[in-house]
């Protein structure tokens, strides 16, 4: 699976809000907030950043069921995509990745502040360190814009 080249910019856009989905071996779903995403050069793997305080159950799920989904939706237009794949590994975030998250969060919170949301409230809600980098190989990408017929598979 090759992620479409247009998604390279999109995945770095702080106007997109990201969430990670996992499931236990008993098929109980779990969702956590993702504080930014990095796409690899081959456009095949994504590395998602998530706060440790939210991630325990998801990381446990991934050890036992490697299926993972990432949804990204634009906070203004609701343009959205879902990336489905297989977990590769997780590790503590590097200093550069923490800085990336800070920059992502700052623009994300400022943007939503323009829509009337509290910037401080959003930081309290989502931003937390330490954090983990969760890497997975993408197998499928779906269009998830809010419209009839949504869910179309895209990418190569």
């Amino acid at each position, binding site marked *: 699976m090759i992620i479409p080249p247009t998604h390279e910019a999109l995945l770095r856009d702080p106007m997109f809000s990201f*969430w990670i989905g996992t*499931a236990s071996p008993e*098929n109980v779903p779990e969702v956590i907030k993702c504080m930014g995403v990095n796409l690899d050069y081959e456009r095949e793997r994504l590395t998602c950043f998530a706060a440790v305080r939210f991630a325990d159950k998801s990381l446990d799920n991934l050890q036992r069921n490697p*299926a993972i989904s990432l949804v990204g939706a634009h906070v203004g237009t609701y343009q959205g995509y879902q990336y489905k794949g297989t977990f590769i590994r997780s590790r503590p975030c590097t200093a550069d990745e923490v800085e990336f998250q800070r920059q992502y969060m700052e623009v994300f919170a400022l943007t939503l502040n323009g829509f009337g949301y*509290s910037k401080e409230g959003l930081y309290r809600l989502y931003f937390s360190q330490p954090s983990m980098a969760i890497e997975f190989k993408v197998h499928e990408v779906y269009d998830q814009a809010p419209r009839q017929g949504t869910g179309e598979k895209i990418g190569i």
Partner: protein
Amino acid sequence: MSKKMIGPEMLPSLQGVIPSIIGTCSAAGVPNVTYISQVYYVNESHVALSYQFFNKTIRNIRENPILCVYVTCPITYVLYKCMLRYIESQSSGEIFDEMSVQLEAIASAHRKTGVLRLQAADIYEVLSVEKIT
């Protein structure tokens, strides 16, 4: 700490001010995540979700009725995680009518009038509620 009921402190988070997130899982164990406009309060142990066009989500729920939904209080910015179990779909009646009206109001606020048309109100039992801190 989790409980099984929706308390009054959670009601602002069910107004649709901040979009909610739901996670489902197929019978094959593949998770799916999507945004949802509205989590509707039915009573302290039941909520309804708007069935609009999230096709994969609906397919998953029919295969595996357990789902996870996150709602956010727009006043306190507290996040609540609710585990739900699907009970039934209603395409008419009081809950459906009230959800349709609320959904139109949410759509109007988000400049999506006519897009977020309700197809059914899906009723869920609340299995647990956890305040995420």
